């Protein structure tokens, strides 16, 4: 009963006939397009130079061959086959091998304006024949035309060209091949030659933007006839494994959840939570101003995770691994053994090294390879230096989702700027995304500064409402007991004073008590003495009385005896004498 996955009811309506799709095999693209490119139809990929249009086309072909056993034809109008092959070798695409295996055909269409003389009416049947032959010779299912606009430079007769291109796309549709056409981005239109008016099934726009000296590539599906699709701009990357589009990991918020609890590493902090820790797979945010031991808290958590023999990934954006290990040793958090035995992986990079997407992808990659149970990012606020707020937020949403789906506990630290501690908002605005929010802050009193920790929220469990003071000692973090003074919780010197006062009061009270005890004892003794006296007195009185009694008794006996003696010799006399009235 510990781990009860709560599966929500499937939101899928009864399956309607869907547009058949050809999975592109490109990381993330199929999620955005909900299955891939329209099967047997042309798709236009347009973008400015350096966007990776050609690469996307080639990857579409290569993945089709490798994953879906769909041979492909690459018709290139710009680069030669050898150039293309060389360009994509670094991505692990072996075009010559695929060509040798008859899975791929590369046809370089050479257009030289100076060689071509228009002498009358013509059409582009030659191109059709070439393409048709290439498709038929290997039974291709996929075709990439890169970049067909080059034809416009070779053939001045636009009217012919346009009608022929229109015919080409119809013809490709009739052939039932899934086609990708790349085109250069135009001014004010999607493509320079307005190709989008011929390709009406699916248009993908690639964009390459430089903001604050950091380049971000973005992808947007402009249209997708007959299918729903993600409408946002999605960042994508050209990695060493090809193109990687980063959707919001199909944010449907229906991941399984765990009932397991993981410890924060500080027992007293755990006690502040209703269930003694965080839920596994939840996300925890620690916010605080500078120097409030956020990293120490994070490292404590990391160490605790490793102590339980689980892997932890620590992404440090501020400190190098060595520095982190050394600094944590000063507070008795020894990370070195965990680093040595591979349970802890510290990845330290400067945020400015990469764009956000690159960070995200590298984090994804590390997580996939390392499979940690917990991830610590210290701090997320540094990412602001790479992107703007909304970008950072969207990246963090994606990251948090990714971690949640994989049931990885995430702990982020975030620096809050400004002296106003009431401003409990993270700059990234991620506070609503996280499940548990711990705030550490400076409690500045008279002439000193103390650290306070409190829980702002904790989804799914009760939590303490106290601001607890904590100390960073050379034996680790210690939460102090709550000391309540006349004006609320007191900390630091105030707390010490309060404690001293309380101690003094305690001593005084004890002394008072002792004094009272002694007094009582004394009184008791006095009373006892009095009682003794009285008892002695009583005894002497009693003695006296007894004496008197005895004497009386003796006297009466003697008297009686005397009377008897008198009566015996003269009983009558005695009788008469004693009872004169009777006589």
């Amino acid at each position, binding site marked *: 009963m510990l781990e009860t996955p709560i599966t929500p009811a499937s939101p899928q309506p009864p399956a309607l006939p869907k547009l058949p799709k050809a999975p592109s095999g490109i990381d993330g693209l199929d999620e955005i397009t909900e299955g891939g490119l329209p099967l047997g139809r042309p798709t236009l990929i347009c973008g400015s130079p350096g966007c990776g249009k050609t690469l996307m086309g080639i990857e579409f072909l290569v993945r089709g061959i490798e994953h879906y056993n769909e041979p492909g034809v690459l018709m290139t109008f710009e680069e030669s086959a050898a150039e293309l092959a060389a360009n994509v070798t670094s991505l692990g695409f072996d075009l010559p091998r695929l060509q040798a295996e008859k899975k791929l055909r590369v046809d370089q269409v*050479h257009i030289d304006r100076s060689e*071509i*003389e228009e*002498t*009358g*009416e013509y059409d582009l049947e*030659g191109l059709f024949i070439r393409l048709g*032959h290439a498709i038929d010779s290997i039974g291709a299912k996929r075709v990439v035309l890169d970049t067909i606009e080059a034809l416009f430079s070779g053939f001045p007769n636009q009217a012919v060209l346009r009608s022929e291109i229109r015919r080409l796309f119809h013809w490709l549709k009739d052939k039932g091949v899934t086609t990708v056409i790349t085109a250069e981005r135009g001014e004010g239109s999607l493509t320079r030659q307005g190709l989008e008016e011929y390709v009406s099934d699916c248009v993908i726009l690639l964009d390459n933007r430089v903001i604050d000296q950091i380049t971000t590539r973005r992808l947007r599906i402009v249209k997708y006839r007959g299918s729903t699709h993600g409408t946002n701009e999605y960042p994508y990357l050209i990695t060493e494994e090809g193109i990687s589009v980063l959707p919001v990991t199909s944010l449907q918020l229906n991941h399984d959840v765990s009932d397991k609890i993981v410890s924060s590493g500080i027992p007293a902090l755990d006690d502040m939570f209703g269930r003694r820790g965080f839920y596994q797979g939840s996300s925890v945010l620690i916010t605080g101003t500078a120097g409030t031991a956020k990293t120490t808290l994070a490292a404590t958590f990391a160490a605790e995770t490793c102590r339980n023999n689980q892997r932890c990934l620590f992404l440090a954006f501020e400190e190098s691994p060595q520095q982190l290990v050394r600094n944590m040793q000063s507070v008795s958090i020894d990370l070195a053994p965990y680093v040595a035995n591979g349970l802890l992986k510290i990845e330290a990079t400067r945020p400015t090294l990469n764009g956000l997407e690159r960070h995200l992808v590298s984090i994804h990659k590390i997580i996939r390879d390392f499979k940690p149970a917990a991830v610590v990012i210290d701090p997320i606020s540094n990412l602001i230096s790479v992107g703007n707020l909304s970008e950072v937020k969207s990246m963090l949403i994606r990251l948090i989702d990714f971690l949640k789906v994989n049931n990885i506990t995430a702990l982020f630290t975030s620096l809050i700027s400004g002296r106003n501690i009431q401003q409990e908002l993270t700059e990234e605005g991620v506070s609503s995304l996280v499940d548990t929010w711990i705030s550490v802050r400076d409690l500045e009193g008279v002439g000193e500064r103390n650290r306070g920790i409190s829980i702002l929220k904790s989804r799914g469990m009760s939590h303490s409402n106290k601001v607890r003071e904590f100390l960073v000692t050379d034996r680790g973090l210690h939460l102090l007991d709550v000391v309540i003074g006349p004006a609320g919780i007191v900390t630091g010197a105030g707390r010490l004073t309060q404690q001293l006062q309380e101690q003094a009061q305690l001593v005084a009270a004890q002394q008072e008590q002792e004094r009272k005890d002694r007094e009582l004892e004394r009184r008791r003794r006095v009373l006892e003495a009095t009682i003794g006296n009285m008892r002695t007195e009583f005894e002497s009185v009693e003695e006296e009385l007894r004496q008197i009694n005895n004497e009386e008794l003796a006297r009466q006996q003697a008297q009686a005896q005397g009377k008897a003696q008198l009566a015996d010799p003269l009983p009558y006399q005695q009788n008469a004498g004693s009872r004169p009235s009777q006589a």
Partner: protein
Amino acid sequence: MEAEERSEPAGAEYVLHLYITGATPNSTRAVRNIKDICEQYLKGRYELLIIDMYQQPELAQREQLIGAPTLIKRSPGLVRRLVGDLSDRERVLKALGITPTLPTSGTSL
């Protein structure tokens, strides 16, 4: 435009390959036009090869054919590609390097 004589195996001065696409109007026009031109200007000096691309589709790639019909002048001189039905006779002649000897062309150039 006088180019050096190359010795062709066939011995013809002009080696022309016309690639057509079956019996389409453009193709038939092109065949008629090139035959006219050859007969008129290059009588006895030419070798004309008419190839149907549909019959030999692999040629299309090898010969870098895009438009149809296409006339490729292999010799003399530089290889030239003439796209179209060859009805613009003036351009055809210029591209082939033939100076019209007959007063057929009225326009300059």
